[in-house]
């Protein structure tokens, strides 16, 4: 890690360029990745990376410099050359240390287990998944762990260090119908803010089994019908639906420039009364959590929508400044090469009181989406899309046949008021979000929800 006195010299150099605000972000990360197809290690990458990012504000203009070379002559030279000199010498508050939330659960570090031990766990899980169902013809595992240490300091006097230890696996199990015609792949991607305890947990082998069951369940899937129909999205990573339908549209970069369908709508009803949307980066042990955000602000529980009323946005320092509001501890970046912006952490819908059986029983003809692969949104128009994984037809109040993956589309403004049932079976899933400041670990969760009607893109008229 960098010496505190060196960080102070960087901040001094930055304020000498006449800026209003300067911030230093340093990271030192060690990662392990291993990809397996059946028992073969097809790709493996292990190593370490470090670098520094320096951000300054002049009014509402942001300038960002980064370097993998953190030697003093390089960093100070970069600031002098790129930010210039002169102007009014800015002010700097002396640094004051504070302690982030303790979000890393359990005590082991990634390097407490060797790579060979980790691969052993992965092979056992892939084998377990393949044994779970006779129809499984291939098992794949994509594993990653990271031990990231960060230092964040700024001219407001913030100085903090955080250590983020993450582990995640994606299991993909492929089932083939008899005769080899027709293949389906089941997928699950759990992650956690912890070290090798993740691999050693009871649940780990269960994930591979679940991916295998998903694949088997989808064998014989028929083309998905097209048109508008009621849709029930299952609990867990189904919460990605709200991540896309409204989460991105509530981020500072979209609302501060007025480019979101939800800009200037605080206090207004934007969803049905069944919808309470929360983003919470402070949950211990969760894949999308942080002890402090990447601007050195403590993460917190942010209630964004309460009973359908828009209560808050996710704001980083710059966009909060533009809007005259307070930052919400939501600023994130993939690594030192990215300037931070407000992004989601663990985003979820609060549980309701409806029962899943009643929800399914209420649908004459519609879709039951058991899991979601991924999606995207254009915050300006609110148009979102997401692709379903394991999906079934509901006919006369019962789940009947599996259907091939479908694309569900709509706009946040149109769909949020159509959430008319929310169940009591809350769960949180894990994945990545790709946006302006890079690829980030996120949690997405919900209980099962019913949308009265939305457009389903399939192949069957």
């Amino acid at each position, binding site marked *: 890690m960098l010496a505190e006195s060196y960080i102070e010299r960087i901040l001094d150099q930055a304020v000498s360029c006449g800026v209003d605000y300067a911030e230093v972000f340093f990271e030192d990360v060690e990662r392990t990745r*291993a990809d397996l*197809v059946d028992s*073969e*290690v*097809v*790709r*493996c*990458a*292990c*190593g*370490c*990376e*470090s670098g520094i990012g320096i951000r300054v504000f002049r009014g*509402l*203009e*942001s*300038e*960002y*410099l*980064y*370097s*993998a*070379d*953190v030697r003093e002559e390089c960093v100070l030279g970069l600031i002098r050359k*790129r930010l210039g000199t002169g102007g009014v010498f800015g002010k700097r508050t002396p640094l004051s240390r504070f302690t982030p939330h303790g979000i890393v659960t359990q005590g082991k570090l990634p390097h407490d287990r060797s*790579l*060979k031990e980790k691969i052993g766990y992965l092979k056992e899980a892939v084998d377990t998944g393949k044994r779970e169902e006779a129809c499984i013809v*291939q098992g794949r595992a994509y594993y990653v762990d990271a031990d990231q240490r960060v230092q964040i300091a700024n001219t407001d006097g913030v100085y903090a260090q955080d250590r983020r230890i993450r582990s995640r696996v994606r299991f993909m199990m*492929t089932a083939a119908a008899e005769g080899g015609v027709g*293949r389906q*792949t089941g997928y699950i991607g759990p992650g956690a803010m912890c070290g090798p305890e993740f691999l050693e947990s009871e649940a780990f082998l269960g994930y591979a089994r679940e991916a295998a069951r998903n694949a088997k369940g989808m064998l014989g899937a028929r083309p*998905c019908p*097209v*048109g*508008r129909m009621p849709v029930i999205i299952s609990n867990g990573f189904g919460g990605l639906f709200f991540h896309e339908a409204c989460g991105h549209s509530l981020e500072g970069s979209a609302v501060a*420039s*007025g480019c979101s369908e939800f800009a200037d709508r605080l206090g207004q009803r934007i969803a049905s009364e069944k919808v309470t949307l929360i983003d919470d980066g402070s949950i211990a042990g969760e894949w999308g959590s942080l002890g402090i955000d990447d601007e050195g602000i403590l993460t917190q529980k942010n209630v964004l929508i309460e009973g359908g009323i828009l209560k808050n946005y996710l704001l980083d320092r710059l966009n909060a400044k533009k809007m005259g509001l307070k930052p919400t501890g939501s600023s994130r970046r993939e690594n030192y*090469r990215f300037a931070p912006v407000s992004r989601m952490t663990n985003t979820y819908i609060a549980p309701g009181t409806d029962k899943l059986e009643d929800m399914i029983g209420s649908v004459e003809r519609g879709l039951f989406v058991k899991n979601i692969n*991924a*999606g*995207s949104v*254009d915050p*300006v*128009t609110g*148009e979102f*899309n*997401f*692709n379903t994984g394991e999906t079934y037809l509901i006919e006369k109040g019962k789940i009947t046949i599996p259907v091939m*993956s*479908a*694309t569900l*589309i*709509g*706009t946040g403004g149109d769909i949020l008021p159509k959430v008319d049932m929310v169940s009591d079976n809350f769960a949180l899933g894990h994945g990545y979000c790709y946006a302006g400041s890079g690829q980030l670990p996120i949690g997405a969760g919900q209980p099962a929800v019913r949308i009265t009607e939305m*457009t*389903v*893109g*399939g*192949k069957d*008229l």
Partner: protein
Amino acid sequence: MTESVRKLWWGEDPELIAFMEWLGEQGFTDIRLFISARKSVFLAVQCQELKRYEYGHSGMYVVEAAWKGEYCCAYASSLTAGSRAKIVRRLKETAGVYTNRELPQGITESRDFRGQRWREIDKEAVSECLMCAEREALSCEKVDFVEMCEYQQYEETVVLIDGKMHYLADDDGDCTVTVRVVAKDGDSAAVATKFGIADAGGWEAGLQKNLRETVCELARRAAQDAGLGLHAQKIASGRYPIVIENYVMAELTGHYLPMFYGENLMHHTSALAGKEHEQVGCDFLRLEEDPFSRKGTCRRRIDDEGTPVSKKALLRKGVFENVLYNSKSGGQAGVGSTGNGFKPDVTAGIGTSVTNVILSSEAGTCSREEMLRSVREGIYITKIEGMFAGGSTESGDFSLLASGNRIIDGKLGSAVNQFTISGNICELWKDIEMIGDDPIYRTADRACVVSPSVKAAGLMVSGE
């Protein structure tokens, strides 16, 4: 590091020599070092002010070697004492975990393929060009806001060095501009994004004029397209003939390139598995990789394993002609690398990728108007969303959010949105009836895809 990798003679770099010798002293043999150094600059203008300026450089050292006769690999972003110790620990840890991995090969002859990609820009002058483009867009009818008006430039240098300090060096880079315009009329809003190459080759006064013209033209086109998207209507579900705009077709094509990768074909995770030398597209469809094409933006002459890149047909007259291999998958197939061993990201192991891929016709081309005239009732697709999740290279299936315009009696009609198009890429290739004369480039991961617009017999549409 950036200055270090700019040295012409790698054998004279004392830091690298010392590092390679030190690895040997630690007991590693068959050492090969991969160095990547990247510089980038980014500017964004909004409301006639420079809103974001970013500049930086990053790099990575990736060591491949043998430890007690077994392949090992590790990376670090610097060669400090702490990083060296981590490299050695991780190299020893990875030895023996790879399945069927051959030891790194030595380099027979040092070669330097680097060009001069990087241009120091005048920040104020680039900002002024972007502001000019913003004004240009805002002067167009119905344009409400320019959400994005950006300039981006990068240069990546890649070097491979073996234990005898033989080296291969190459580089790549480009300058691009992006304009995203929001049009509004009453309650209706529409967005259009345009990308372009701003590779002006330097930063003298005349070339600055080129950038200004390029970005202003993009702004005008984005404004025009956004205006055309206003008051979009819903469309009834059904099967429609379609004309797919060049930029959309390039995105579709780029997404499905992994279907040609040897490792995916071997692992049956490609929809083309078992279809080599079969007809998978219409009989005038050509898809080829051409690293030397002036249409594409990629300039690499060797891949990340040091194998020379080469021109090859992927589809010729609609027949699946060539598989793309890196050294490992090529070795497994018994044919060797095709010069397609590229890292998906700098810290990752070698995967498969391409340089410039060009979709074209082997039987003449048509103008966009001719394609539209051939459709009595159909849809002109100008935008798709959801490719990442909604397009499967394993099955070839896709189901995507789309928008565009109706085609009625051969002419463009009202805007349509909030519908999906579904199909299979091989079926779409077979259904192509006409190929346009308007090729445009688009980047896909590290590759560049060039495609004209196409007309296809039909796709399933889900709307109302």
